[in-house]
C-alpha cells in the first residue's frame, strides 16, 4: 500500500484505477477537484443555512439544472460565481496552499504552530499522547489524530 496517486495511498493491485494516462488528464482532474472542494464548502454551508439547491439557483440567477451540472462536474465554477456564493452565504472563501513536499503531519504542525501554539508529546503506559498548549487552554489530542507524528523526526525535534 505505498503507491501514492491523487494525494492518497493506493493499493498497488488497483493502481490502474487511479493512474492518469498523461499530464493533461491529471491537470484536468485536479482542476475539477478544486471546483468540487469549493462546492463542498458551499453545500455544507447551504445545509447549515437550510438553503435548497433550487433556492441557491434562484439567488444566483440561474436554473436548478445549472447548479446540478456544477455539482456533478459537467460545468466548472468561475470567480464571479464564487463571489455570488460569498454574497448569498454572507461568507468569505479562505485559500490555503499546502506544499506537496510537506507530509500531512508537517502541514498540521505548521498550521498549529503558526497560531502561536506549542506542541509536545508524552509516552505513557496507555500509549502516546499529544498535548497542545495554546494561549488560553491546555488540552490533549488523541494519539490517533496525530498518529503519523510518532515517526516524524521533525515533530520530535519540536517536541
Amino acid at each position, binding site marked *: 500500500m505505498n503507491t501514492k496517486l491523487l494525494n492518497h*495511498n493506493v493499493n498497488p*493491485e*488497483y493502481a490502474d*484505477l487511479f493512474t492518469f494516462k498523461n499530464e493533461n488528464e491529471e491537470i484536468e*482532474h485536479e482542476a475539477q477537484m478544486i471546483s468540487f*472542494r469549493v462546492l*463542498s464548502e458551499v453545500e455544507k454551508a447551504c445545509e447549515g443555512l437550510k438553503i435548497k439547491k433550487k433556492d441557491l439557483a434562484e439567488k444566483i440567477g440561474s436554473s436548478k439544472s445549472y447548479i*446540478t451540472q456544477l455539482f456533478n462536474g459537467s460545468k466548472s465554477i468561475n470567480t464571479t460565481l464564487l463571489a455570488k456564493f460569498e454574497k448569498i452565504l454572507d461568507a468569505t472563501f479562505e485559500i490555503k496552499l499546502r506544499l506537496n513536499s510537506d507530509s*500531512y503531519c508537517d502541514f498540521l504542525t505548521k498550521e498549529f504552530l503558526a497560531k502561536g501554539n506549542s506542541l509536545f508529546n508524552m509516552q505513557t503506559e496507555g500509549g502516546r499522547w499529544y498535548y497542545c498548549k495554546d494561549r488560553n487552554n491546555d488540552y490533549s489530542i488523541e494519539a*490517533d489524530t496525530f498518529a503519523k507524528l510518532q515517526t516524524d523526526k521533525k515533530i520530535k525535534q519540536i517536541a
Partner: protein
Amino acid sequence: MNRFCEILSTSEDGKIAICVDKQNKEEILAYVRQSERHLKKFRFIVQLILEGHRNAELYDKEDINGRCDNVTAMKFFKGQENGRIYCVEQRLDRKYIIIAVQLHSRKKTQKNTKREKSIIEKIAQYEYEIIES
C-alpha cells in the same frame, strides 16, 4: 452477516479507506473500468470521500429508513444512465471504511423501487472484515 472486502485506497492520514466487496469485486470493477468516462467519475468520487468533502450529486446516503443509515451510493451520471454502486459505511480498527458492495448499473426511477429498497435493506446488515488482496 460477515463478509470480506479489499482495500482500494486510503486517505493520506490513513483514517478513511475505500474498499470493495470481495464477492462482488469483479462486477463492480468491470463497471468502473468499462470506459475512461466511468474511471474519471470513480476517481472523483473516491477522492471526494477520502478528503472528506460533501457532494450529494456524486455520493450520498440512501436514506430509506432508520435501519439503513449506513448505506450510501456512489452515483454515476445522474440524469443519464444513472448508475449506482451501493456502499456500506462502517468503523473498523480505528478506520472509517466505505465498502463498494453492489452494482446497480441503471437506476430508472427517481424514487427507490421495491427491488432497490430490498437491496439496500439487505446490504445494511453486512459487516465486513478487511482481507489482503
